[in-house]
């Protein structure tokens, strides 16, 4: 319950405060969100599997976001930013799908 409340608080805070993001950081926000989604779905799945661990979740979240942004940053510097973004989105997207399917099996037993 608390994590869901936290998520809601974060969304409301972000929409209400409308903080300005530095321009150099803006291109990496979408990919960071996808990485964060992956970590969150992984955490929910682990919770249903009964092996959730707060430390692992926090570390995986932070490292996921940072590494995804870094990969895209590196790609931008090398001139393959768009392709690397696609690669990151594909891999993370597959994982999100897999986790979502596992969560669905837990929830609906189907």
């Amino acid at each position, binding site marked *: 319950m608390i994590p869901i409340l936290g998520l809601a608080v974060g969304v409301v805070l972000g929409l209400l405060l409308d903080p300005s993001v530095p321009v150099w950081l803006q291109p990496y926000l979408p990919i960071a969100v996808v990485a964060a989604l992956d970590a969150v779905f992984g955490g929910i799945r*682990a919770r249903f599997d009964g092996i959730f661990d707060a430390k692992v979740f926090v570390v995986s979240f932070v490292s996921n976001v940072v590494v995804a942004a870094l990969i895209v940053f590196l790609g931008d510097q090398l001139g393959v930013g768009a392709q690397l973004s696609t690669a990151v989105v594909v891999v993370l997207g597959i994982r999100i799908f897999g986790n979502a399917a*596992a969560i669905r099996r837990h929830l609906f037993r189907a």
Partner: protein
Amino acid sequence: MTATQQPSRTRSLGASLLDQVLAETVDPAYARAAEVRAARPAPTRGARWRGQALVAVTMVLAGLLAALTYDQASAGSEGRQQIRAALIADIDRESGVTDDLVASLADLQAQVGAARDQALSASTGGQLALDQLARQEAGAATEPVRGPGLTVTLGNALPSADDDPVAGRTPADTEVAQVLDRDLQLLVNALWSAGAEAISVGGQRLGPTTTIRQAGGAVLVDLRPVTSPYEVLAVGDPDSLQNRFLGTPEANYLANLQVTYDWVFTFGRSDDLELPGASSTELRSARPVTPEDAPAPGTPTPSVPGDGGD
């Protein structure tokens, strides 16, 4: 190695990578942490609370990140639209200012003309100068003209129903098929040679120094943009104008282009055309007219550089 693992070794690297991605959707670190936890005594109440708080803070971060990204994405498109609207408003406003200035320029020129006529009509020398001035103004096309003539319309190909509006024509196609400044120049020159007395293109009267030029995708007549279809009005005797225009090689050339590129190319006689005056050229030098100084008819007033002001 067991027999069941044998096939996986022959699979390509890419396929095994995909297999791994597909199989390992949950972070293996969770399983390892669970093993470690099982080996140790149960965590204290305080440690559990700390963990929950950490998770909550991380979720706040996740929500913040998502909201920020959403904001950014929506602000991006909104901002572009706002900038576009602001630029369009700027253009409209400045065009309005230009129109106002053109109108007041015409007013002031009329006042200057009236004052000049009044001042000159008093003396004989002035009368002569006035006659000469009238002839030269007619030559410079600064006075509005009204009369019968020919209306020629030249325009880009109209989009037909068969065209896919997105990908139907390649950019090269559309570029080739556009009416260019030189086509309009050809048309105008053909009309002059056919005996036109006054010509306007897209509402812009052509004077002796008026240019028809291309700037980017737009055709500029007298530095003002005109758009397709270009309506060319020529004042002159309609019968001879039409006959002689049709006899020119340029008309033939344009008719060919019309067939090739589906251009709009029509012409018709008009009984009453009204052409505005061309923008007058800048006054560069002037000097007072004295009776003994009055120029003989036909000879242009010698201009003395630096003698007068603008």
